[in-house]
């Protein structure tokens, strides 16, 4: 399977990005300090964005950076800073209940096995990566054409969630 002559720069870049992304993702879950978790979450987002760039979908990549790395991660960092009331090094520990820990780990392992098995056993046709990136125009066409209702619904969802978030976070004013 592994053929050194077919190994290209593209593959090397992929392996590096994927490795960094996965390490950062492990960091999110395993680091005991939630600030570090949040920062490595940002690194994961950037890694996923890099994966998108490598897939020649620059638009999604840029959106990924803009929305996830630029906005969502800031929200998370703010929330973390607002909600810290114990020492930072103990903010993101795994659950104390061993049963839950083992059950979670076991289920995750089984799930991963099932997924890997599914990917491995599927007969993938020899597919080539589409290298053209005219996706911005096509995305615009699709978004405001066939999927316009979904687009509107997403807009309304965002509006509703913004208002909801503000109201919930503000809390009830005690008179």
């Amino acid at each position, binding site marked *: 399977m592994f053929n050194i002559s077919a190994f290209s720069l593209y593959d090397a870049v992929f392996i590096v990005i994927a490795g960094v992304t996965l390490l950062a993702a492990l960091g999110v879950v395993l680091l005991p300090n939630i600030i570090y978790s949040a920062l490595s979450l940002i690194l994961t987002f950037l890694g996923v964005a890099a994966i998108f760039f490598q897939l020649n979908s620059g638009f999604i990549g840029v959106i990924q950076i803009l929305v996830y790395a630029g906005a969502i991660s800031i929200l998370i960092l703010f929330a973390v800073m607002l909600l810290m009331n114990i020492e930072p090094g103990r903010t993101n520990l795994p*659950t104390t209940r061993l049963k*839950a820990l083992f*059950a*979670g780990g076991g*289920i995750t392992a*089984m*799930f991963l096995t*099932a997924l890997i*098995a*599914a990917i491995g056993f599927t007969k993938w046709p020899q597919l080539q990566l589409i290298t053209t990136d005219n996706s911005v125009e096509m995305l615009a066409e699709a978004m405001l*054409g*066939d*999927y*316009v*209702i979904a687009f509107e619904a997403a807009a309304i969802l965002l509006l509703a969630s913004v208002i909801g978030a503000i109201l919930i976070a503000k809390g009830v004013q005690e008179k």
Partner: protein
Amino acid sequence: MIEFILPNAWLIPFLPFLGFALIALFIHRWPKISAGVSIAFIGTAFIFSLLVASAVFSEPGGAVYEFTTRWLEMSGLKVDMGLLLDPLSAVMLIVVTSIATLVQIYSIGYMKEDPGFASYYAYQSLFAASMLGLVLSNNFGQMFVFWELVGICSYFLIGFWFGLPSAKNAAIKAFVTNRVGDFGFLLGILFLQIIFGTLAFSGLAEAVPEYTNMAVLVPVALLLFLGPMGKSAQFPLHVWLPDAMEGPTPVSALIHAATMVAAGVYLVARAFFIFSSVPEAMTVIAVIGGFTALFAATIALVQNDIKRILAYSTLSQLGYMMMAMGVGAMTAGMFHLTTHAFFKSLLFLGAGSVIHAMAGEQDIWKMGNLHKKMPVTTWTFIIGALALAGIPPLSGFWSKDEILLGAFASGHYGLYILGAFVAFLTAFYMFRLIFVAFFGSNKEGEHAHESPGVMTMPLIILAVAAVFVGFVNSPFMHHVFGEFINHPMGIQPHPSSMIMISSSLIAVAGIVLAWLIYQKQAISHLAIRERFKGIHQLLQNKYYMDEFYARMGQIFVYGAAQVMFWFDIHVINAFVDLLARFTGKSGDTLKYTEDGQVQNYALYMVAGALILVVVATMAAVSVIA
């Protein structure tokens, strides 16, 4: 200019809408500017309408322009929107824009003191925009949208003085009553979409006549007719229109006499291809129209409120138009719509002028001798009344005559007699109003004063129109109107001098009777009232329709509530109790799995998903193997 306006006819409804938006958003603080903007925009729309009409009527038989664009498209649903410019819509455009312009000019004087001056003009503009949009729609879907917009504008305008409980209630009543009709209308539209796959008039006009399954088409046509029934206030749904007079009088003139209530008639004319292929529906329309005409005319005989008399008269005339549609005389119906729009708005504006002069007094018995102080109002009002009564050669004569002729020629003799009788009643109650209010002996009218020029000018213009509009479909002008506005399925009989003469005589008889009773006082109206006390009571109370509705509502709602109460207690409640007991028992047993830990729930969820994945994989493997 004409080349420009045809593809850009959307400007006609758009301009008033722009006016509405400007007033509502920016300039409502300056009432005078608001009024000016509103009038300027509707006036421009009027000029555009004239241009459109000149283009449409330049070809024999009328040119038809249709412009369609795709509004939104996705797999399985295509929604078009478009403009339809044909003689029918051109006539309606002119009627709506001209009367709206005059009414808005008139309102400068009438609404002068009102604190809501600017918002009044905003509503007026919005109404004009929606009405014009309705007229220009080329499909049922778009039309329905504007139909509802018109309804909401009517609601706003009836309830314009929402501080008065009566105005508020009238607005709600109008809205709710219209909902009943609109619900049926919407159902009809949906059925059309399901059956024919299109809502465009052009597409339906081809498809409907070839469709033979009457068991489907009859209910669809009747459902569609429910919309006009509500909007044009036909018999069971008529109750809102008289109450709608709580709104400002120019509103009554524009909306509840000339334009919005005519939308129902317009719809029937627009969808004539559907109704005319369903004879049963035609009969229903004719009977309901005729009945409404008679029913409302009789009520109008005994009303004392000047606006209510006119309101019932409007009802009656709308019934007339519907009757014309029903007997197949589509041309006559549309013609009557056009002429009626002019003289009825004239009458309403005249009534408004009187009310304005009398400082809000609406009871005709408290007026009198107005003709000395208000000559312009009086004489224009009389012209309008003569036109309504059908005195030749005023406009009402020609159109009313055509309707009677249509009823006669299509063999509906009963309806013909009914129509002639209604014409008699019309002449009578209109001149009862005139003799009592304008020439009566009461001294109250002495304090009146003529309205300012900004109010009398529209009256004069409308009076001129009321005299001359009728000629477009008279034998003198070779029935020009009918040449453009007709339908192959409609009937267009040759004029008959017998019917003309008889109907004129009937009208004159009505006027003479009114003169005898109310002016000459040869017959005491009080004596008549005493003699026919029962009937008078019945008419005075509008056949107790409102009370009837209220009573029926109470009986049915209360009765149904009784039944449901029993059902609820003995069936549903028992079942629910059973469920509750079951739930309680099972909850007692199962509660120990619910430990309040979100993650445990997530764990169960993922485990379930995992089981599904494994089962599916095994199934797939077994299929392959």
